Every structure is written in structure tokens, then in C-alpha cells.
């Protein structure tokens, strides 16, 4: 058996509703700052949920990442967020953006999304239906193809290894990281830019609003709207953004002499097959528990080594079930349960971007020795309180050295992903 390569994280990039860039985001999550705001467009369109999490990107910032030509007829927020996060992560890893004749054969990207350029798609559809197909111009395909984000990043960075986009609903970001991790482990790449992005706006969120899975009770109190693990949780708040991580073979990182944020010990992705309790929209708990247990086995750790869990925890009725699944998979409960938190309390549910934004938040906690608070759960869910001790859910910033974090994401289609990060 060939010894698997060790894989570490050397770069991070984040475009989140409560902070764009690592410094702003780190401060925001330490302080429990909400990025959820009233959204006038959702109100105009008579959505049930009229609040959302959208990153703020100025025109000036855009121009640091895109040329004037690229911004001509550009209308894809997902690609915008993904490119900013991705290029930031690349620079954060101490890597240059070179314009060589040959691409960098050792570096690739797996950068996920749910859909791409949905506003651009809408524009194109209106033109096509108006017999104006010939007037679409050249920009529709690159912005609306699923792999648009990885294609943009691959071109900007000159990546010569695998350049692709994965898509597995709300598991997408965690899955992209694990796919890149395995590629490096197998020796097929030295370095992978992994992460995920999600468009913002009514056309991406409308379907969820129609399913009544978003909260409609906080249109006048946006910052209180996203309430994971709260007794008064009433559905998720739609969000958007992008998270990006440069992951790298340990030897390569050491040879470059760069900062190592943390090590990826292992992980697992699986599916409940929409069998047992699983459906298109509900998780099969057996599969969720198996995913977590298999991730620990892959990482070769015991559940007692887990200090903190960064949960999926969306603020729907499923939060208690998720906690129950963690207690069973870890065989730990009550006061013996690890700390657990939910980034969604501050930024809402970033859908395909959620997993990668939460991975970035997890790594920041390991590297900077803190646990960020979960806001809006002052009235803890009663069922959750019977499973784990209340003090396991920090509602204030905690300064603490953390050795191991487990991060999980679950998505429509009954898909699961769990990754184990360790301090390096």
C-alpha cells in the first residue's frame, strides 16, 4: 500500500454576508455580528421571507479582481464571490499569480456551486424568447455553465491540474474540500484550490421560499431571523457568498516555508440513498451517523478527541435531529458532548456556499484559538437541551485552544459530508 500524502491548509479566502476578507470575517464571527438584512427586492416580489444574507462588494473591489472587459455584461454573483474568495486564498497561501507560457501542472481547483449566473440566465432567456438569440453576445455560456466558477479561477491562476466544479446542494463546499484532499493524498496534485460559491437574489432563493422552509417571522427583525438551535427557530434565512481554501501536500507547504493553518486528517462523503428516513429533502439519520463515524475512522481519531463541532444547523425543525445524530455517532452526550456552533446564526444558509464558508470559519477557530458564539439561541430548543448540556453551545466568544474540529454538511438529495481538521 502506498502511504497517503498528508494534506494541510495554507490559504483561506472568504466572501460572507458579515465580512468580506479574512480580517473582517474573523472579527465578525468573534463578535457574533449578524450579516442578515432586510432585502427590499424580496419584499417587492412578495416573498414570505424578506430577509437575506448578501455580501457587500463595492465596484472598486470588483475591479481588483476583474478586468473592464470581464465586467462587460457580467451578471453572475456566484462567480463574483467565488473569484474574490479564490484569488484571496491563493494570495493568502503566499502563491503568485504568474503569466507563464505553461500552466502550473501541479495545481488545480475543485470549486463547487449549485447553479451559476442565474441572473445572467434570466437575461438570456428573456432575449431568446424575444427572438433575440443572435444578440446574446459571447458572455452567456461562461457565466451560466455549471463549471463557470472553476473555469474563471483556472484561467486567472493558470491551473494545469484538474479544473472542475462539484455540485451536491448544501454539502457542496465540504465535498469540494474532501475531493481535493483525496486528490492530493493520492499524489495526483500538489495543491488544490477548493471551496464553493452561491449566487444571491430572488431567483436562487425563490424555490426555497415556495417550499416554506425559510422564516417569514423576522421581516422586521432581520438580525434575529437566523436562529439555529433556538426553540423559536422558524426556518432558515437565505444567504450567499463563497469560501475558498488552498490545500496542499505537507511536504510542498514545508518546502515553501509558508504558514500552515491546520491539517486535514480525513473525512467522508456518503448518501442516505433516500431510503429509510431519507427523502429528497430529509436526511436518512443512519447515513448521517455513518458519515460522521466513517470520517472519524478515515481520520484515525476517537470521538473523545473532538473538541468542537461546527454543525450544519440551519434553524429548521431538523436541528434537534442533527444534534441527536451527533450524540449517537460520537457516543457522547450531556456535559460530555463537544462544543458545537452554527455559523448560519450570523450569515444565514449560504446553500452551496455554506460548507466552504463554514470550513473557513472552522479553520480560523483552530488557528486563532477561539470558539465563535452561536447567536439567537438564548431560548435553546427543549429537545436539544435533553440531549446535550446548554454550556456546550457557546453564546459568547470563548478564547480556547482547540485541537480537533469536526465539520459536517448535509444537503438535498440526502447527501452528507464530514471533515476532521486538526491543529498543526
Amino acid at each position, binding site marked *: 500500500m502506498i502511504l497517503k500524502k498528508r494534506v494541510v491548509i495554507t490559504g483561506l479566502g472568504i466572501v460572507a454576508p458579515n465580512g468580506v476578507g479574512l480580517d473582517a470575517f474573523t472579527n465578525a464571527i468573534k463578535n457574533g455580528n449578524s450579516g442578515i438584512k432586510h432585502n427590499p427586492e424580496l419584499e417587492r416580489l412578495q416573498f414570505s421571507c424578506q430577509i437575506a444574507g448578501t455580501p457587500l462588494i463595492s465596484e472598486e473591489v470588483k475591479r481588483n479582481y476583474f478586468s473592464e472587459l470581464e465586467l462587460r455584461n457580467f451578471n453572475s454573483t456566484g462567480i463574483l464571490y467565488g473569484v474574490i474568495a479564490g484569488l484571496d486564498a491563493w494570495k493568502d497561501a503566499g502563491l503568485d499569480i504568474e503569466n507563464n507560457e505553461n500552466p502550473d501542472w501541479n495545481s488545480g481547483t475543485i470549486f463547487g456551486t449549485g447553479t451559476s449566473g442565474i441572473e445572467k440566465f434570466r437575461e438570456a432567456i428573456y432575449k431568446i424568447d424575444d427572438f433575440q438569440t443572435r444578440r446574446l*453576445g*459571447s458572455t452567456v455560456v461562461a457565466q451560466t455553465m455549471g463549471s463557470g466558477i472553476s473555469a474563471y479561477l483556472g484561467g486567472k491562476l493558470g491551473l494545469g491540474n484538474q479544473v472542475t466544479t462539484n455540485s451536491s446542494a448544501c454539502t457542496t463546499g465540504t465535498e469540494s474540500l474532501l475531493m481535493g484532499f483525496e486528490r492530493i493524498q493520492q499524489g495526483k496534485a500538489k495543491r488544490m484550490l477548493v471551496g464553493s460559491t452561491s449566487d444571491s437574489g430572488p431567483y436562487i432563493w425563490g424555490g426555497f421560499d415556495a417550499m416554506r422552509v425559510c422564516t417569514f417571522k423576522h421581516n422586521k427583525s432581520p438580525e434575529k431571523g437566523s436562529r439555529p438551535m433556538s426553540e423559536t427557530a422558524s426556518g432558515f434565512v437565505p444567504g450567499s457568498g463563497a469560501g475558498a481554501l488552498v490545500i496542499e501536500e505537507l511536504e510542498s507547504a514545508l518546502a515553501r516555508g509558508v504558514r500552515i493553518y491546520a491539517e486535514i486528517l480525513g473525512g467522508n462523503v456518503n448518501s442516505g440513498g433516500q431510503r429509510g428516513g431519507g427523502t429528497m429533502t430529509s436526511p436518512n439519520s443512519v447515513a448521517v451517523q455513518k458519515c460522521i463515524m466513517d470520517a472519524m475512522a478515515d481520520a484515525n481519531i476517537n470521538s473523545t478527541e473532538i473538541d468542537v463541532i461546527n454543525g450544519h444547523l440551519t434553524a429548521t425543525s431538523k436541528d434537534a435531529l442533527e444534534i441527536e445524530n451527533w450524540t449517537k455517532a460520537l457516543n457522547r452526550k450531556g456535559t460530555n458532548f463537544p462544543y458545537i456552533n452554527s455559523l448560519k446564526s450570523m450569515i444565514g444558509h449560504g446553500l452551496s456556499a455554506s460548507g466552504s464558508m463554514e470550513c473557513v470559519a472552522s479553520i480560523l477557530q483552530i488557528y486563532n484559538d477561539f470558539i465563535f458564539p452561536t447567536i439567537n439561541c438564548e431560548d435553546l430548543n427543549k429537545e436539544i437541551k435533553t440531549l446535550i448540556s446548554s454550556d456546550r453551545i457557546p453564546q459568547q466568544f470563548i478564547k480556547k485552544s482547540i485541537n480537533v474540529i469536526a465539520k459536517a454538511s448535509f444537503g438535498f438529495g440526502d447527501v452528507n459530508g464530514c471533515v476532521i481538521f486538526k491543529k498543526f
Partner: protein
Amino acid sequence: MNKEEIIEKLKPIVAPFVKNEVAFANLTDKTDFITDLNINSANLVDIVLDIEEAFEIEIDNESMEKMLNIENTIAIIQTKLEEK
């Protein structure tokens, strides 16, 4: 519209897509969009759309295929203007 007038009107349309500024500064009617100005071939359709708008003409697919250099482009624009 004479050749010079058309070239003056073409320049700002082509400018955003140009990757070789030296060739653009020394533009002649033999200048080729792709080989001289290094314009991405996918962008030629964008240039044609902008020309249609600026000159208020419509350029059919057959004509568009020939619009690879300044000389042909001028000829096609003149033909279309005359047809108006």
C-alpha cells in the same frame, strides 16, 4: 460614410477587446482582429453586435464570417449602409 469616418467610429468599439495596444495604435486596413490585435475570437460576436448598434445596420451570418480584419469590416459596413 468614407473609410476614415468608419475607422474613427470603429476604434472605440474595438478598443475594449484589444490585447495588443501597439498594433491598435498603428491600425491600418490590413490589421487583423485576431492575429494582430490578439482579440479573443469569441469576442468577435460582441464587436459585431456593437457595430450593428453604432451604425444602425444588421449584419447577416455570412457577412459576419468575413469580418476578420479592418478592410473587410469597412467594406461590409459600407454595403450595409448603402442597402439601408
